[in-house]
């Protein structure tokens, strides 16, 4: 079970919205909605090999940095809306946090959202690799 004591209010709210979905189709619809509300902010020239998320069938890229206050910032771009939507939610979960915390990030909200059946590690959606990349970048920004 996800330890939802760990989740920010914003994430809890997202999880709640997903939990009210009737089936996977609705959940995916909601995910598409997040993708649309949070389109890629990554300039197209940063969709390069260095920033690529591997093991993803579609193209996905992520760039991480620290903001003025030392808070972690991940910006992603994916051509699949499902990945883009997950990126948006992950960004909501980690952005602004200290990199130390991001390096330990546990995307347990995925289970809370009822998406873990869809996003198994062996599906080539790259979500797990994206989280891994975000955590690695956070470590190197510590």
């Amino acid at each position, binding site marked *: 079970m996800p330890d939802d004591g760990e989740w920010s209010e914003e994430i809890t709210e997202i999880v709640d919205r997903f939990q009210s979905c009737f089936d996977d*189709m609705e959940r995916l619809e909601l995910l598409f909605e997040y993708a649309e509300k949070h389109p890629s902010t990554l300039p197209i020239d940063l969709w390069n090999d260095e920033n690529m998320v591997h093991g993803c*069938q*579609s193209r996905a890229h992520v760039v991480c940095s620290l903001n003025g206050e030392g808070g972690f910032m991940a910006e992603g771009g994916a*051509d*699949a809306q499902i990945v883009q939507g997950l990126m948006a939610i992950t960004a909501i979960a980690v952005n602004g946090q200290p990199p130390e915390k991001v390096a330990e990030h546990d995307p347990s909200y995925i289970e809370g959202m009822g998406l873990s059946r869809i996003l198994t590690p062996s599906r080539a959606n790259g979500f797990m690799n994206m989280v891994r990349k975000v955590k690695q970048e956070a470590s190197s920004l510590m």
Partner: protein
Amino acid sequence: MSPTGPSARGATVTLDVEEIRSHFPILQRILPNGKPLVYFDNAATSQKPLVVIDAMSDFYKQYHANAHRANHTLADESTAALEGARDRISRFFGTSENQMIYTGSATEAMNLVAYGWARYNLEEGDVVVTTEMEHHANIVPWQELSKEKGIELRYVPIDVENFTLDYNAMEVAIQGASLVCVGHVSNVLGVRNEIERVIEMAHSVGARVALDSAQGAPHERIRFDELGADFCSIAAHKMAGPTGIGCLLVKSDALDEMGPFLTGGSIVKRVSKEDTLFQDGYAMFETGTPRMAEAIGWHAAVDWLEENIDFEEAHDYVHEISSWMAIQMRNIPGITVFGNPEKEEAIGVVSFLHDTIQAQDLGYLLDAGGFAVRTGHHCAQPLMEAMGVGSTNRASVWFYNTMEEAEAFVAHLANIVERFS
């Protein structure tokens, strides 16, 4: 149960699909999301009837031992089963057991042509012809051979208007060729190539022909001796058989030109420290402990097909479903169907894309409805390139699918397009 299949819709084919489906345990599967499985990924791999699964279990439970050189009962029974399977399967493909070599897969069968025949018979400057429509299994071995041996590799282009091979270009390409490697049926487009014509063309210039029948064998009875091809690669798992086995059919005069490839035990008459005297014929190519359970399972599959499936009837049945799907799908806004599944000789495959819903997303959305389709480049990147796409979604039909499934699929796809584009 209500009658299913096009027959119930006033169509011509009368396959007892309910009965056939009852042989396949997996078709009863309810997915974790609560949806019943609708399996439209048959071109990737087919499902297995219970008799196939049980034949293999039975082998392991009753008479498993290492075949050949048998003096004990179990080994004798295993040998009889392995060789009985060879006899049965080769006859199913319209040839004799002397012209069939067991391999691990269709891919390994094509590699056997490359390493076991081409490596011994082609040299620098010799020409191998393949096509833009091929699966990577019929491209990469030739590229590698070309690198190693300096052979020239020519690609016959496709006619992108009609989604067929460009036979005029082929006529030109095969001039001076030693080997022509062509797919029997395209796994992306379901196009059934005019292999009889290709064989004639190739033989008229003295070239040998290697057919990739991985997609042909599940839909059409292969009559290897009649067909006249020199090599033909087949995968069991795409035709109701188990994983881990396939075969290469080889015309005997081509077999005579082959040399050892994978080496070790079983394929030898005598090994001394200085040299090895190899067995003759197919026995030169099957080294190590045989794929016994796999051969036994494939034998059961072939028996089951012979007993239950009239291939021509099945072709018409499958075609009725897939062509109906293609026609319906072309009416869904934003959907493009590649190829011509409507054509009489097309084979059960509908490749498609939506113009705004990305292919991977579409795959997930179809899965959410219980529909198993393939998404990707289908190991045919040169074809993707020729068509100007990176990937497609692909629904592929076999005889155990029903028109109800097709209707549900089209309805779900229309619903996705409505909600997600």
